[in-house]
């Protein structure tokens, strides 16, 4: 059923989330909070070298330490063959994942796991790690993406040949893949252009920086039945990966989702679970593992840093006639940067006749990148949206006007293939233009910037169930880990379909044995896909409730109406009966056919793409180069906001992560290829005092493929901020900062160069 245009009473309101009280009182159990009888602690030994051949590992001394129960290395794990995996978010190969969890032959980055130990206490684990003797043959390493592409660069994988290049290369290299999109004739387009802008842009790897470090508790039974309790963005994902990496039947693994303390894409793969389970198998006891913050930075996924070139050509009236983008993304130690979506997203907001995009996926001696909120798009859009701002300035055009003039509409064919349908880019720009912020004057010395972003959003496989309890209250069961309030939105959609108050629905997240397969919480898919499954399950429950009422009244189900959470005779012809409430029907369920319940699994298609436009005002201290964000507004087409507070929250949080990416966050390496800032002290996420309020403006262009019109909202908001901040700085000081982060030393340096003081 489609509820567009109908009167809704629950969707669009702001009830308290079902798991809220647990989370404000400390009762919620996250990855590291679970214990089991007989539990041991596990820890990982990591490579101190950026690139080294592992000559030998001797754990004999560690195993003699009292309290130590087992040590594992890659030799204890199956040697996995190369095979593409479609389990998490973004490209992954089972062999690479296996080798990322535990190095085999070579350590490919500082922090790469080489062994793991379990013992009766964490302190004994630490001592044991020091007693594991690993002999390395240290190899030359490469950190920078363009250095890694050079002919004489140290090669990470002898069997890596650049894909999508004809003829097939004869020499291995660090370039894993070439991506190419072409629409029209870009060179002919540039010849028509009156104005051309060009720029070279760089970004640094940034970490998702979820506050909860990775943690799990795993138990391997003597009968081969395994339980995994862990914090992830998909317990089915954990199950698939662990089964493959350890050679266990999927049905023998039961994964229970812990509450997840943030992920942002970084928890769509596994690091500890296979190791904890392998240790548990070896010693016969449950094993708990948790990363330190330092391990999170050194060994879990940041997103790519990149080097890019953009060239745009336009007619005097602002019509863009040619656009070219070259992107080189760091993948980390194994192939699989988000280069593909990066190549798609940069120009996806625009209707342009001639586009050429060329991308490279490049490995280097850094931790393997993991998905991070709209993987690939923020990097690409930083370059494109800055270049577009420069183009508007050169043309003397308003930055919103140039976007409107060239903006994508329903029917615009993208350079990567699909044609946009039912999109809200122009509506988003219109809302930005009409916002109080855009119309407000700036104070002297301040600068204002605007930038926009596009994300596909995805659907995919999801399962949900709805159970009517004996008293007529309702339990909604989701297969999606709740990372930011999805219990609330799922429960609200169920309540809406049943026409009962949201408070009457308790939503829980079920383990892998208790609900059908559900893809990861990622790609902004949960409210869309799991929400669709839950709504359908609720509708099936309504059908059953009508049948039960019909049975009680002894009329046909067609003659029963469902409204206000009650069954009514459809009309006077149906008979004169007092309405039956959900509770009354539930009470009689045993006599009318048994429990009222439904589970629905879908492979949801038609996730509507999302667009955002962010407006940023800054002040720049020209003596220190420090940039202060003084006002920030984020406009986004959300389709339909199910729970507006959590939609706003996604937008505000994404914007602030983007502000961090813009101003201060970066991986810093020392001369030995080791990360020099693996902590929250020197990896500088925004703190509360760095920021103003973030105004979120919701534009609602309904997605006709979702029962309530919802679009994914979680990823779009991290795409525009870097360029919005950069364009604001450009406005304030007249200089284009083309290298992220736009940190104080870089801004001061740019000012000094411009003033001839350097």
């Amino acid at each position, binding site marked *: 059923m489609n509820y567009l245009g109908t009167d809704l009473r629950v969707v669009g309101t702001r009830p308290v989330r079902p798991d809220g009280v647990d989370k404000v009182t400390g009762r919620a159990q996250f990855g590291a909070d679970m214990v089991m009888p007989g539990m041991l602690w596990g820890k990982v030994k990591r490579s101190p070298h950026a690139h080294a051949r592992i000559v030998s590992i001797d754990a004999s001394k560690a195993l003699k330490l009292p309290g130590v129960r087992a040590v594992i290395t890659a030799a204890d794990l199956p040697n996995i063959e190369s095979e593409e995996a479609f389990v998490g978010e973004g490209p992954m190969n089972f062999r690479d994942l296996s080798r990322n969890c535990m190095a085999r032959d070579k350590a490919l980055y500082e922090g790469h796991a080489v062994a793991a130990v379990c013992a009766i206490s964490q302190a*004994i684990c630490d001592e044991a790690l020091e007693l594991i003797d690993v002999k390395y043959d240290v190899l030359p390493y490469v950190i920078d993406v363009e250095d890694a592409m050079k002919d004489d660069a140290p090669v990470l994988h002898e069997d890596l040949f650049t894909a999508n290049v004809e003829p097939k290369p004869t020499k291995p290299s660090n370039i894993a893949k070439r991506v190419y999109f072409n629409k029209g004739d870009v060179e002919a387009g540039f010849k028509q252009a009156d104005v051309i802008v060009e720029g070279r842009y760089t970004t640094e790897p940034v970490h998702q920086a979820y506050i909860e470090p990775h943690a799990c508790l795993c138990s391997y039974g003597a009968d081969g039945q395994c339980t995994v309790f862990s914090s992830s963005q998909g317990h089915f994902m954990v199950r698939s990966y662990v089964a493959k990496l350890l050679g266990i039947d999927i049905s023998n693994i039961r994964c229970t989702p812990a509450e997840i303390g943030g992920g942002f894409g970084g928890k769509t793969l596994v690091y500890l679970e296979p190791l904890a389970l392998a240790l548990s198998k070896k010693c016969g006891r449950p094993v708990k593992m948790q990363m330190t913050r330092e391990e999170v930075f050194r060994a879990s996924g940041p997103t790519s840093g990149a080097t890019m070139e953009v060239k745009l050509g336009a007619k005097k009236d602002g019509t863009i006639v040619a656009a070219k983008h070259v992107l080189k993304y760091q993948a980390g130690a194994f192939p699989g940067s988000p280069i593909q979506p990066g190549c798609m997203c940069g120009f996806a907001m625009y209707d342009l006749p001639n586009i050429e995009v060329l991308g490279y996926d490049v490995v280097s001696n850094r931790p393997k990148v993991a998905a991070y909120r709209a993987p690939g798009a923020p990097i690409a859009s930083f370059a494109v949206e800055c270049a577009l701002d420069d183009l508007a300035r050169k043309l003397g055009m308003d930055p919103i006007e140039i976007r409107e003039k060239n903006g994508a509409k329903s029917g615009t064919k993208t350079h990567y293939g699909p044609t946009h349908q039912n999109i809200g880019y122009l509506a988003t720009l219109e809302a930005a233009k009409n916002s109080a912020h855009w119309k407000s004057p700036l104070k002297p010395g301040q600068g204002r910037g605007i930038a926009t972003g596009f994300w596909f959003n995805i659907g995919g496989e999801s399962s949900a169930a709805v159970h009517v309890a004996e008293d007529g209250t309702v339990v909604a069961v989701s297969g999606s880990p709740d990372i930011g309030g999805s219990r609330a939105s799922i429960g609200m959609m169920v309540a809406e379909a049943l026409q009962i108050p949201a408070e009457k629905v308790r939503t829980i997240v079920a383990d892998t044995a208790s609900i059908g397969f559900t893809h990861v919480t990622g790609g902004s898919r949960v409210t869309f896909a799991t929400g669709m499954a839950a709504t359908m399950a609720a509708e099936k429950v309504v059908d059953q409730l009508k049948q039960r009422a019909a049975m009680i009244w002894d009329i046909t189900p067609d003659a029963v109406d469902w409204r206000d959470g009650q069954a009514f005779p459809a009309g006077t012809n149906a008979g004169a009966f007092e309405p039956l409430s959900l509770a009354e029907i539930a009470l009689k369920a045993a006599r009318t056919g048994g429990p009222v319940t439904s589970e629905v699994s879908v492979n949801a298609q038609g996730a509507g793409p999302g667009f955002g436009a962010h407006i940023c005002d800054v002040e720049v201290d020209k003596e*220190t180069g420090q940039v202060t964000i003084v006002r920030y507004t984020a406009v986004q087409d959300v389709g339909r906001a199910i729970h507006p507070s959590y939609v706003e929250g996604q937008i505000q949080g994404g914007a602030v992560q983007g502000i961090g990416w813009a101003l201060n966050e970066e991986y*810093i390496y020392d001369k030995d290829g080791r990360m020099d800032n693996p902590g929250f*002290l*020197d990896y*500088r996420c925004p703190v509360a005092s760095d920021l103003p309020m973030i105004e979120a403006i919701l534009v609602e262009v309904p997605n006709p493929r979702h029962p309530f019109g919802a679009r994914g909202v979680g990823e779009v908001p991290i795409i525009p901020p870097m360029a919005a901040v950069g364009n604001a700085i450009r406005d304030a000081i007249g200089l284009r900062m083309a290298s992220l982060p736009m940190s*104080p030393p870089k801004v001061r340096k740019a000012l000094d160069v411009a003033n001839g003081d350097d």
Partner: protein
Amino acid sequence: MPTLNYAAPSTVDEAVKLLAGASGLAKVLSGGTDLLVQMRSGRMKPDLIVDTKMIPGIIGIREEGGSFVVGAATPGAVVEAHAGMNKAWPGVVEALDLIGSTQIQGRCSLAGNLCNASPAADSVPALYAAGAIAVVVGGKGRREVPVEQIPTAPGRTSLAKDEFILEFKFPPRPPRSGDAYLRFIPRTEMDIAVVGCGISVTLNEQGVCTAARVGLGAVAPTVLLVKDAADALIGHTLDADTLGKLDAAARAACKPINDKRGTIEYRTKVAGVLARRVAAIAFDRAMGKSQGKTH
């Protein structure tokens, strides 16, 4: 496995004996906001922790003949709440207040900040500028040491194995005196200073500087007491020419390194910028034009 011992003596003598008798590395624990981080990361592996917070007088603030005496382990939050210290030494108070978060303020101490001997310690340039005296106790008794003689190198101090700081004495304040501290960090909170600058001045009735001390942090292996910068102020009002000379003197004193927190070039430039801004606040305070903290 090596055991880590802990003791919480209730007298100075007992503490000194414990430190003197320790077989391995003994560390004094005040607020623990540096020590526990160093222990957890494995950079510091002490054999004995001597928690001095039970020693009478080591926490608290008293006034003695116009000067303030601050117990070495007094938490930042206690100093910040003290009206007398805020009035007499706003620069010291604001410097201490800049160490870490509100949570850190509940524990961090002047002695810990000084004895951790980080060149970037926030309270230390202000302590140097204030001319504070550290009262050191140890096996050889009690001695009074100017604070700038305590740190000797990153992570090293002039204290003997059996010595620790009991309290700090701040000298009496002449009329028309003021101090201030600013640091530069990339964010607004929670960072280590890229550069820190503390200045204390005394002015005559015409606003001419008669005495000055300038402390600079994070621009050399230890916090610097920059005499040339003080000399640029003494004998002058705070006009453009004086500010220019102060800026130059501050920059000239810098011997920084390139690291993850800042470059040599950037630190040097910002040292000059901060010196000018801090001097302006200190002069205003000396003339009674402004009160209170800057953020």
